[in-house]
């Protein structure tokens, strides 16, 4: 009996060892075909240079050397750093506040509010930007009309000082609900007996929320900050779509991704554009890693 089993065991083990890989195969194939291969292709592009006159030649890391000192690229990064410092705290605090309120059980029709908050995320960025573009309209937009009706000066959402806030507002509108859902799910997972325990210790609902619930979802908050850092540094659609309305403040290198786009499709510098994309990837990695280090130190 033991021999019989022993005789079969290796096959079972091999089967168990192979099965996960077989199941992973479809993902791996797609991952390789649509991420790894294009990245290798793009990296290869970034090591060459194609000129209108003279064709293509290998230039090593020349494109990277150029990117590292390109003011158009770094001005975009700096803009997004400033953008992130406005946009992320507002968006994530709003999301957190909404999640805590919905989770507190003080609200009727919780499901309805949850969907209402989440709905903007389901609206494509293109539609959202066009919609806000109309609302911001400097002469005939609804806000300008209201200001005119009240004999106030019409607000200019596309001025140099306002444009970052205007775009931040669009992205806050778009992504607050998404982050709220993540927080809400984490809050729902907190065991109910903790609430009872804190009540017995005399904690108010507010104290319970801030002192008990909040610390328990810190890992989730860290995840959302991470997502936001990555998303912010890749900002493209909103400024791109609003360009026509605010041409005097949004130029062709407004954000790094915008710059990579115009380099490739307007200036036909595909090689340099590929290099810019990789440098941006490195910048994202640096920022994310720095944040991870900081948050590890903070939570330790």
């Amino acid at each position: 009996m033991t021999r019989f089993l022993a005789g079969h065991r290796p096959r079972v083990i091999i089967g168990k060892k192979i099965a996960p890989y077989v199941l992973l195969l479809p993902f791996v194939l797609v991952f390789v075909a649509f991420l790894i291969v294009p990245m290798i292709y793009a990296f290869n592009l970034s090591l060459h240079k194609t000129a209108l006159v003279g064709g293509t030649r290998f230039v090593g890391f020349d494109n990277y050397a150029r990117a590292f000192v390109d003011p158009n690229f770094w001005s975009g990064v700096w803009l997004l750093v400033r953008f992130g410092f406005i946009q992320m705290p507002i968006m994530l605090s709003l999301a957190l506040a909404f999640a805590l309120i919905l989770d507190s059980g003080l609200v009727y029709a919780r499901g309805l509010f949850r969907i209402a908050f989440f709905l903007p995320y389901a609206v494509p960025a293109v539609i959202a930007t066009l919609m806000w573009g109309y609302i911001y309209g400097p002469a005939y937009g609804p806000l300008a009309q209201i200001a005119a009706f009240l004999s106030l000066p019409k607000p200019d959402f596309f001025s140099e000082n306002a444009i970052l806030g205007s775009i931040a507002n669009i992205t806050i509108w778009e992504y607050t609900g998404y982050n709220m859902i993540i927080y809400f799910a984490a809050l729902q997972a907190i065991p109910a007996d903790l609430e009872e325990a804190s009540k017995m210790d005399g904690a108010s609902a507010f104290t319970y929320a801030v002192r008990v619930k909040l610390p328990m979802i810190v890992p989730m908050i860290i995840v959302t900050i991470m997502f936001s850092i990555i998303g912010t540094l890749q900002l493209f659609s909103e400024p791109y779509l609003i360009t026509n309305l605010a041409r005097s403040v949004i130029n062709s290198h407004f954000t790094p991704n915008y710059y990579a786009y115009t380099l490739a499709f307007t200036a036909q510098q595909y090689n340099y554009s590929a290099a810019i994309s990789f440098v941006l990837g490195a910048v994202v990695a640096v920022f994310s890693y720095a944040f991870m280090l900081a948050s590890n130190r903070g939570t330790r």
Partner: protein
Amino acid sequence: MAKDRIEARRRQGPSRRQLLQGGAALGAAAAMGGLAPQALAQEKIKLTIWAWTPKTQELANLYSKKNPNVEVVVENVGQGAPHYVKLRNAITAGTGLPDLGQIEFNSIPSFRALNALANIGKDGANSVKDAFVDWTWSAVSDGDAVYGLPWDSGPMATLYRADVYEKHGLQPAETWDDFAEQATKLAQDAPGTYLTDFANDSGWTAAVLWQAGWRPFKTEGSKIQIRINDDVAKKWANYWQKLIDAKAVDTKPGWTSEWFAAFDDGTYAAWVTAGWAPVLMQQAMKKSFGKWRAAPMPQWEKGGKVTSNWGGSTFAAFTTTPHPKEAADLAAFLTTDPEVSRKWNTEAYLFPVLKSLLADKDLMGHKYDFYGGQAVNEIFAASAAEVDPSFEFSPFQDYVNSQIEDNFAAAVSGKGTLAEAFDRIQDTVVTYAKDQGFEVT
């Protein structure tokens, strides 16, 4: 992108009003329609066209009717910028190009630089040369080499609001000096009303500078002369800078719905614009019906007769086509056939490039109620004959356009002047040209 915007507006679908019903008076054009008979394919072939204009498949089918062996398939792969991105991708890939494509006048040098355009001069294209307005032919040809056939154009003139002009005692400006004076006066008389908007559009900028005598590029093979910040440009920059500083013109971005609304409610009184604009405005305006008029483009010299062009396209054959002769013949048919070329104007609202159509009293003399019964096309047709043919676009015009718009934007929002913007554009474009392997002189 600017191109994209121009195209988007100028081909905004059919209007309620037909430009013309009748279809007589083909006299002068009757001799044309395709190239001289030559040995074309006898077997069945298929030709593909990439274009974004309306009615294109319908009119292309007329070719198949006369040439049953040739099936013509029109594909719309995008309007303006996306169209060119796809063409460039196909050129880079070396496969997937159509036989013929819509190429705007300002993109001809860029695609020639990629060696993508077939020289159809040797396929008999020179035989239709005289049918076209001179400047359009010099834009597509290089000696006997022909890289596309002119299809539609945008000669410049002025559209203005007769009611606003009348209220403030203005007459259409004959010279740019008058224009500046009027702009200043109007801004003083009626704060909040502007004679025009300086909309930072690179296509418009090139057109009005073209009229002023700006000749920024001269390309010969891999040699290019770049004079973007020459005296003409500086004089032009100072002219507009003065008006901008005095707040005598507005500086809002063009082509937005707000911008059109400003023309509609009389906030802006005039637009120096192209031959495709009259129909566009008729479709875009809501309440200003009947209040619009057209007048010639202001001149730099009193009594001068120099105009320029903004926009317009050609049909170009690509080097990869296995049927260059047939592609050339199709292009010639689509651009010179009396019936088809007329229909481009009456059904797709393209402004003509054929001398015969511009001289056609029936077509150009059509009176528009939107323009208070004025035959506005006559103004633009007169302008078409005065376009200076010596203007050249660069072989990397998209890049130049983006630099114009970036740097003008900075100047308009108070960072430096337009004159300084021209210096910066000159520098970046020279750097770019060298980087692209050109010998810059």
